[in-house]
């Protein structure tokens, strides 16, 4: 079981390609909102490359997670800001993004050192992400732009984000205490997380493929 999950975790560094490749293939058909969404797997891929480099250099990569958390949330907020342009007050999501950034920096500097998981910021990121996706699904129901949900890029993007943030919430909040559970338990837990990571990038990939 440990070897199965270790392979799942190992190959998860390529998971952003599940979204990146379809995104680049369909690039000229993507709306502005979807082009912004494409930056999420781009950031994911670049972070994975950086992790590999740091690992090869024998350097810790947890500080990178602190930075990536902020970048990832800013990209997600940008995407949802464009998506909810006509629905929500114009400055609401930018305010949330700025607030989260400030909080994450304070968390990394004063609350949770950069040599540990920034579980508080990650948990907050998940909660905010879940809130965005719930509003996103409400928008899909209210507008009914597409006859079929399967052909709606917004549906697939929301699906991916909702599954990702929902399943990661408790794993990320408990990421620091989990380190005391033992190697096998950690492989299983992070392996399960990696599976949902595949689903996340796959959903984004489908969102790019159905864009027109």
């Amino acid at each position, binding site marked *: 079981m440990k070897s199965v999950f270790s392979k799942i975790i190992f190959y998860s560094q390529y998971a952003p390609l599940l979204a990146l490749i379809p995104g680049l293939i369909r690039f000229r058909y993507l709306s502005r909102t979807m082009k912004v969404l494409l930056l999420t797997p781009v950031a994911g891929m670049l972070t994975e490359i950086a992790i590999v480099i740091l690992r090869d250099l024998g350097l810790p990569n947890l500080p990178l997670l602190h930075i990536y958390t902020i970048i990832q949330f800013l990209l997600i907020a940008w995407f949802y800001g464009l998506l909810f342009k006509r629905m929500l007050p114009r400055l609401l999501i930018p305010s949330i993004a700025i607030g989260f950034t400030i909080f994450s920096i304070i968390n990394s500097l004063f609350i949770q050192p950069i040599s540990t998981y920034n579980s508080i910021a990650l948990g907050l990121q998940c909660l905010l992400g879940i809130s965005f996706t719930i509003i996103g699904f409400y928008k899909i*129901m209210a507008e009914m732009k597409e006859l079929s949900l399967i052909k709606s890029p917004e549906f697939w993007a929301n699906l991916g984000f909702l599954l990702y943030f929902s*399943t990661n919430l408790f794993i990320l909040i408990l990421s620091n205490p989990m380190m005391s559970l033992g190697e096998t338990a950690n492989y299983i837990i992070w392996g399960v997380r990696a599976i949902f990571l595949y689903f996340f990038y796959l959903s984004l990939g489908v969102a790019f493929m159905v864009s027109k």
Partner: protein
Amino acid sequence: MNIYFVLIAGTLGMCLLAGGIITFTVVYRKRLMEQQVLIKETELRHQKELLHSTIITQENERKRLAADLHDEVGAMLAALRLALSQAQKQEDKDLKKAQLSEVKRLVDLASNSTRRISHDLMPPALETFGLAAALGDLLANLSTSGLKITADIPPGSTCGNSACDLAIYRIMQELYANTVKHSGATEIDIKMNNTDAGLEIIYRDNGHGFTSDQKAGKGLGLKNIESRLSVFHGELNVSSSPEGSVTRILVRPD
């Protein structure tokens, strides 16, 4: 063990929540789409019915016009031709003078018939003096039928443009025809009002009204009225009791 429990329970719980949200979205949206399709189909069916009734009314009008022209003007022109032929052949001056008088009488009759038919098609007072004057003429003519008609139509009443005024004129004709044909009423009362919301017309009669089944079935007359009002974003509201019917019409300005 506590961490395991929180982790597993929390993650499963969030998965269920996510699944619930997605399922709700899919199912609810499908229902909304089905409802929208149903509404659009009903609207389309209604529009088709209105169009159908408009076409039938137009054809009936044409038949009536053809009959009027044939029976009245055609017959008079035939009689006129005969009288002129006889007058042409007549050598006696007095008899010729009498026959020419008869010709003049027939010409006057034909002219009156033509004028009446023309006024039915397009009331001249409507374009020259406006809706209130045209309705005044119409109601004065209709009063001779024995029905007691009272009207409160302020001078200058209009719904904004001549096409709309003509539609209101036709609607009045239709309401009168409905009252005579179906209600058995002896009195009609018409009130017209230019309000902030638009031109309001309240038409009452003291007939025996109609049942909700009859209203649901909607005769040709009501459908014609609806059809005319739909062009000008007008509203129609009909209420009925054994004491009589009240028809409320509101035409909003453009």
